[in-house]
């Protein structure tokens, strides 16, 4: 056994798990997403201190504290810009962004489009349960139009948002869908998303047992994508526009170069800049 392996034992999933107990309800899909994230990090053997998990506000956005990496639990809807600033300033870090359907698609919807367009090397994991859980059961942008709630009696009557279609149209470089009930499959998707350069979007169907008990049926509805990943936007568009929302797997992989202006490569000193003002 070499010294190297003595000093650096292989990291396992629990090395990435913090000792803080989640606030989630029993049976929440986010538990298994947390487990998938730690499995993916272990698969990639990333030093925990070189990983940052950034989030906004919502049930799913609690994840950073439960992962033993650097993290930021920011304000509602702004995880993507915060992560963008971090990654652009510190391209050496692996930056994951955790969000939900309210945080990511409603209040943070504009940032979603622009993060996809900008194509900074981020992995954006959205736990979609089609409901605002933390505020106790209001409809989100992905909620079915006839879902009854106190805030929208009889349903909103509004068609759901199509996150994967939007991601493709806006320029995301990697698009996948997974199901929280399949933590190993989801861990693989997250691993691939982290490996893929540019903006990677992973939608994870993550049931809310408390406010959407009907989502217990999701395990019977999800199915593997019957097609291979494509890098053809036209094919991907057709696939994403026509799927039933339960099609899981890697659905698009693009080849756009990530946005990363150089950092730390100075060609001038501060005094050189001052010279321009000198008369």
């Amino acid at each position, binding site marked *: 056994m070499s010294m190297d392996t003595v000093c650096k034992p292989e990291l396992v999933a629990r090395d990435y798990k913090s000792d803080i107990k989640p606030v989630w309800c029993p049976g929440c899909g986010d538990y298994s997403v947390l487990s998938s994230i730690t499995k993916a990090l272990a698969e990639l053997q990333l030093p925990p201190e070189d990983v940052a998990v950034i989030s906004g506000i919502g049930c799913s956005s609690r994840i950073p504290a439960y992962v033993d990496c650097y993290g*930021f639990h920011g304000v509602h809807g702004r995880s993507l810009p915060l992560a963008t*600033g971090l990654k652009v300033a510190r391209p050496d870090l692996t930056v994951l962004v955790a969000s939900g359907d309210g945080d990511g698609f409603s209040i943070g919807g504009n940032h979603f489009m622009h993060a996809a367009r900008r194509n900074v090397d981020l992995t954006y994991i959205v736990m979609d349960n089609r409901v605002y859980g933390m505020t106790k059961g209001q409809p989100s942008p992905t909620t079915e139009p006839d879902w009854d709630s106190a805030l929208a009696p009889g349903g909103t009557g509004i068609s759901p948002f199509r996150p994967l279609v939007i991601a493709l149209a806006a320029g995301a470089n990697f698009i996948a869908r997974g199901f929280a009930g399949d933590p190993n499959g989801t861990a693989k998707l997250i691993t691939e998303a982290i490996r893929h350069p540019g903006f990677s979007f992973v939608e994870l169907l993550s049931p809310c047992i408390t406010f959407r008990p009907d989502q217990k049926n999701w395990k019977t509805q999800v199915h593997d994508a019957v097609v291979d990943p494509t890098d053809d936007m036209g094919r991907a568009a057709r696939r994403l526009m026509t799927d039933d929302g339960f099609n899981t797997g890697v659905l698009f992989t693009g080849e756009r170069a990530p946005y990363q202006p150089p950092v730390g490569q100075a060609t001038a000193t501060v005094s050189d800049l001052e010279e321009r003002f000198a008369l």
Partner: protein
Amino acid sequence: MIESEQKPAVQSLSVVLTGSGGSGVITAGTILLEAAAKAGWYGLMTRSVGPQIRGGEAAALIRLSTTPVSAQPDRHDLLIALDWLNVQRFADEMPLDQHSLVIGNSAQSDDVPEFIASSHVRRYDLDFKFMAKAIDGGRPNMIALGCVGKLIGLPDAALDAAVEQSIAKRGPDAVAASAAGVAAGRKAMTDMPTPATLAPGTADADGRWLISGNEAAGMGAVRGGVRFVAAYPITPATEILEWMAPALAKVGGNLVQAEDELASINMTIGGSFGGTPSLTATSGPGLALMTEAIGLAVASEVPIVVVDVMRGGPSTGIPAKSEQSDLNMAINGLPGDAPHIVVAPNSISDCLFTTQWAVHLAEAIQTPALVLSDQSLGQAKAVIERPADLAFMARRLTAETPEAGARYNRYADVASGISPMAVPGTPGCAYTADGLEHSPRGTPSSQAGDHLVQLEKRHRKTADFDYGDHWADSGGDGDSDTVILTWGSCTGAVREALAQLDEGARSARYISLRLLMPAPKEQLIAALEGAERLIVVEQTHSGQFLSYLRAHTGLTRDVEHWCHPGPLPLRPGDIRQLILEGESS
């Protein structure tokens, strides 16, 4: 004419160049400023534009002097209008009197605006366009420059060199055409009685800078160590960003243009969380969008600098003109009890000092620092002495990997309140920064005890910090019992007014607050000792600065109050009159 030639040269004069947008008056104004600098003079150029994006009227208001200039003048000696268009709109901004010379376009002599026609100015018409057409590639703005140079006594060599330097990038033909235009302008003024000539400048003007307040803020940020900027364009702050984008790239940093201010402020927090001193710049409407995330930076203790180049408000307000009316928002705009830093530059040169200081304070204290500049500083250009090198550098207290068995607590309740901040990549210090109230470790907590500990920690680190002598600038007659208390861009006019007070007239001193939050209460009380008469000067409608003084510095005494909204600038004469006669209104 003979009489005018005997006029003694003055120490300061001012010139306005107006024309339709695209006529090049701003370019001409900039060249005039550069030429003046070459001649050893100081100068200040303020721009005014109408509401149109392009093609509207524009004015370059240039004050030249043998000593540094910090305010707009009480009156203008010379107005040259390449065309009249809607110059009437600028009537309030360019006070003229019977000694002023106005040169208009003779092709438009029927369109002379009411405020000129009805005034007692001396008028003359010149056909700028016709004169320009006589020169291959000639432009009316160069004719005007030649006129100004001749009338004010600007040495030909200085103007010719500045023209050549400015036009060189457009090729030798353009330089020749410009030189011919300047010469034609000079010739046209051969027999013109001058309104005023400026006394010769100092021979040794080397080392001076020509810089705008926005550029100075950017330069201060880079000097202080800022290497990441995220921002969204907004008038009148955009020039900070446009200067910083290439400048940061050269020194190994970078700038991201965000999709909105919600994004730009959060990107800035993200960059700083990663360990890179980070800044954003905006104006009132953008600052309003940023307040939630500035609160996040307070709670999560992430150092950031936000430069607010104030404009007329509320709402979209008057985007290209100045006011000091974001003070309330900067002081009080954050949700919760949110100790943060608010500082204000008091001159173009001070935009550099104060922004660099803000970077230092934000990084040292690990909290947001807001810099309240304004349009009249940001978009004005001045010839200044080279700003001194400052010791203010971004120096953040960072965490080291703890010894085995020890835990790193990001929000530890240390005596100074300033707990070591781990930079991502440091092993053993992984933590989650949080806008939720938290325990010393950073774990979310809604417990009363944790809340109180963290509230007091955050309060302590701003309140107990030693801000040194930089909390204010002061000047004037130090023994005087008349004190003018002001802040920000109003300071320039106050300084000039006090410098101009005749000997024997009533004297005064001034205090200009640079540090607004935390309010320098004890320092101000001490500085006001012996003040019999206190005059508070600010550019708002509702008296935001006086309200701030009452609320945060314990000021209870009666004061005189010069309180006018933008966009008209405070002029030295306003202050002189105030000191000598009291506020007339």
